Every structure is written in C-alpha cells, then in structure tokens.
C-alpha cells in the first residue's frame, strides 16, 4: 500500500514520459494532418536500437539516446521522403490512405524486428537498474528518475526549437495556417520531412527510455500508443500545460488504481483504454474533437 506522496511522485514521473510520446504524434499531426500509427512500431524499434547499442557496444541506455534521437530523426526523414510524402494530402481529418499506410509501416517494422532480434523477450539490465533513491520520502527507481530527466530535457528541447528557431516557427506556422506559411516562403514539403523526423526521433527516444523500465518484444509499444491517444483526447494539445494535464491525469489514475485497489498490474493498460472510451462518450464531439485538438497543437 502506497501513500499519496508515492502515487504523486510516480505519476509525475510517468506523465513526463507520456507527454514525450504524445508530442511525437502531435508534431506530425499538426503539420501533415495524419495520425502516425507507426509511432508504436517506432517506439519498439527505439527500444531495440538502445538494446543493441547496450549489448554490442556497452553503451549506457541513456547515453545512447543521444545516438538514437538523431538516428531516428534521419530515419523519419527517409521514411517521409520514400513513403509518407506519396500520400494524397489529408484534409481536416486524416485520410484513410494515411492510416492504412502507416499501419502497414508498423507491421513492416514489427516483422523486421522479429527477423533481426527474434520474438524473444528482451530487457536491459544495467548496474543501476535495481537501485533506488528517496525523492520527497518516496523510493524511486534510478532508471525512472533518468527517464524523467530525459523526458523533461526532450520536451524543453522541442519547445526551444519550436519557439526560437526559424525552422520551429515554420513548423508552427504550417500547423496553424498552411496557406499563410506557403505565402511566407515556407517549403511545406521540407517542413513535413523535418516534422516527421522530429516525431520519429521522439518515438525512438521514448522507446529507448521505455526499454530501461520494461521488458519488450517486437509487439511492444501498442499500449503506449493508446496512452498517447488517451492523453490527446483528455488534455488536448493546445499547450504544454494541456499535454501535461492529460498526461498527469492518466498517470495518476494508473498509479492510484494500482496502489489503492487490488487491480492486477496486468490490467493497467485497461485504464487508458477505459479512460479513452469514457472521455469519447462523455465528449459528444467524439473523434472530430480529438482531431480539432490535434490541429491546434503548438499554438
């Protein structure tokens, strides 16, 4: 039985990671109006990339994020140039073609992982995996703390890029009014490539961090994609605060239910699904509401 402080500390830590996952989706949706269903597969691939860097080269999983991030950015750009850009442009809501295509990419990534790493369950065991420290009187695993730090750094990095660079402002401009961005001289195709790269990098980094907390197989990532959807439906993506709020609510419910009820841990994934379901039913606008919120990401 955990006390309220324990649940809160753990919620804040999970929420930062969840927000990192959700932002990866939102950058891509904002610029291209497509839902990146391959996000889950990219997170899985990020976990395996971190795993391989760890087992082959002995690279610490958190240091390897500095490799995984840029590498996945490039992978995302290539994926965009070879595959995603061929899609017809989505209108206000994602086209069926984009959903099918990216679902297909997810399947390809899964099979690629089965081929390279087999279906065996893998995990990363470092010297500090089992260590814990006290935070506000709560014992927290050292990997969880590193994940929190990595997530906060990623989110700060993204916001600095979006707010201060011409590239970041161009991403926000395309998100908020695409025609106006074109008229200002923004090359929407290059910006889409960058946005897809950023979203992919965020998936890879999130996956790399997840690999230090959970065991994984090529099927890994599905439940986390659902969590990201849930956060978007809950808090919207209008602002950092919205994402943080959505991520916190989900993380708090998950941690609270597992601490204060006899709900088995294996049911934790059902929390986000139930929450997603309830929110969608309670919000009469349903999925269009989700899309409307995604559309206003980064405003």
């Amino acid at each position, binding site marked *: 039985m955990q006390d309220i402080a324990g649940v809160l500390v753990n919620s804040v830590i999970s929420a930062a990671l969840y927000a990192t996952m959700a932002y990866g989706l939102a950058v891509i949706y904002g610029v291209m109006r497509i839902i990146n269903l391959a996000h889950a597969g990219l997170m899985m691939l990020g976990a395996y990339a971190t795993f391989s860097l760890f087992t082959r080269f002995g690279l610490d999983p958190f240091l390897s994020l500095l490799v995984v991030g840029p590498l996945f950015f490039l992978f995302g750009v290539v994926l965009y140039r070879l595959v995603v850009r061929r899609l017809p442009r989505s209108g206000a809501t994602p086209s069926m073609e984009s959903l099918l295509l990216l679902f297909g990419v997810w399947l390809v990534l899964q099979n690629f992982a089965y081929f390279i790493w087999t279906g065996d369950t893998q995990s990363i065991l470092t010297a500090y995996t089992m260590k814990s420290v006290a935070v506000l009187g709560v014992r927290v695993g050292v990997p969880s703390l590193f994940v929190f730090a990595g997530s906060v750094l990623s989110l700060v990095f993204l916001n600095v890029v979006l707010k201060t660079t011409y590239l970041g*402002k161009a991403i926000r*401009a395309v998100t908020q*009014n695409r025609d106006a961005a074109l008229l*200002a001289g*923004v090359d929407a195709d290059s910006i889409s490539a960058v946005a897809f790269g950023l979203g992919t990098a965020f998936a890879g980094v999130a996956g790399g961090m997840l690999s230090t907390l959970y065991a994984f197989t090529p099927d890994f990532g599905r439940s986390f994609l659902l969590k990201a959807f849930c956060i978007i439906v809950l808090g919207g993506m209008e602002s950092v605060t919205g994402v943080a709020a959505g991520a916190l609510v989900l993380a708090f419910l998950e941690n609270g239910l597992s601490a204060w009820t006899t709900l088995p841990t294996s049911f934790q994934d059902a929390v986000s699904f139930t929450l997603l379901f309830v929110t969608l039913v309670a919000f009469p606008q349903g999925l269009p509401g989700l899309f409307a919120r995604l559309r206003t990401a*980064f*405003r």
Partner: protein
Amino acid sequence: MRLLTVESLDVFYGDVQAVRNVSFTVDEGEVVTLIGANGAGKSTTLRALAGLLVPRAGRVVFDGQELAGRPANELASRGIVLVPEGRQLWPAMTVLENLRMGAYPKHARARADAILGEIFAMFPILERRVSQKAGTLSGGEQQMCAIGRGLMAQPRLLLLDEPALGLSPLLVREVFASLRAIRARGVTIVLVEQNVPHALALADRAYVLETGRVTLTGTASELLVDSRVRDGYLGYGSV
C-alpha cells in the same frame, strides 16, 4: 519597366472555371486594381499569381521570367507576396512572431529589424500588441498585422486581397492611408478591393472583372467617370 505580364490566364477549381483568359500588365512602381463583384474571380487570380493555385493555361511573366505554376514558397522568395483575403494570420503566434515570420525568405532576413521599425512607425498599435496572440486582435489590428507581415518579406510585387473587408469606415481610411505610404516607398501593388471609390482613388490603372473575364480596363481616373463603372460599382460610398 514592365514588372508583371499576365497572359490568357485560365484557372479552374476541379471542373469549374473561375478565371477565363485574363490578361493584364503591371509596371514597376504602379498600383493596379482589379475590381468586380463577388465571385468575379479576383481572389482566384491573385491566388494563382501567388502560386496557391496552379493555372491550367496562360503565362505569368515576372521580371522577365516565366513563373506560372511555380509553388507559392518559391514565388514568395522571388518577391511576389500575397496578403490574402481574411488576413490568415497564425492565430496562436504573437504579433511579433507573425511579423518576423514574414521575413522568412532568406533575402528578407538581413533587413528584418529595420523593416520592423518602419512597420511600427506605420502602425503604432502593432508595437503595443507585440506579445499578444494574433488570434485575439481586433479585425483592424489583424489587417494591419497581415499587411505588416507582407511588408516584412520586402516584396517587389505586393498582392492585396480586400484589405478593407469588414472594417469600419474609420479603419478603412487608416488602411488606405497606409497603402498610400507603402506605394510612396515604391512598392508595386496589385489591389483587389470591393470598396471601388477608395481603390480607384489609390490606383494608377484598373481592370474590371466579370464572371472570370476582364471586361473593361483603363486608368483609374478614366474608370472613375466611366458610366459602366459608375452604375455597376460606384453606387455606394464615396472617396
């Protein structure tokens, strides 16, 4: 010197033709206005010139180069800048961010600070609103911000689509005063405006569009006294 030559332009939305065989010219330093009723094809013409629509046929020669069908971002970099109908600001960016993004083309960045100063001198209200989100501005302020954003790109050809639409008479005067100031700085302008008296008072020459076709052309002073223009477009308002 001839800056823009539009020749036999045809623009379609799917199967529907909105602009038919439209031709006109604009000289360097000139203000040319396109007038016509709602749905005549004025916005479509400007959107095609700015590269947001690809013309099905016709030529657009800008500064000696054939540019029809080039993408909007390339045309913006070459100095063709459209201030679109309905402002089209980035609502969740601040006024300053909107203006600074106007200077996105590489050639415009070096002098961005100086131009920004001139814009604030022209529209002092914008300087007081710099950190406000553009979506929260009043209609008049949004229009000034949109014009300012267009100027930040240091246009060689400024295309203005109904800059006075939906503004109070007082603000209409203010916007036209700013257009006069812009013109005085030697910027070439193509102006689309429903407020025909104001437009003709500003312009050197005018073209009248009806259902996608140019039906009448002349100097602004000729058209001001033309009976067809008087009956069709000068029935309201005064200069």
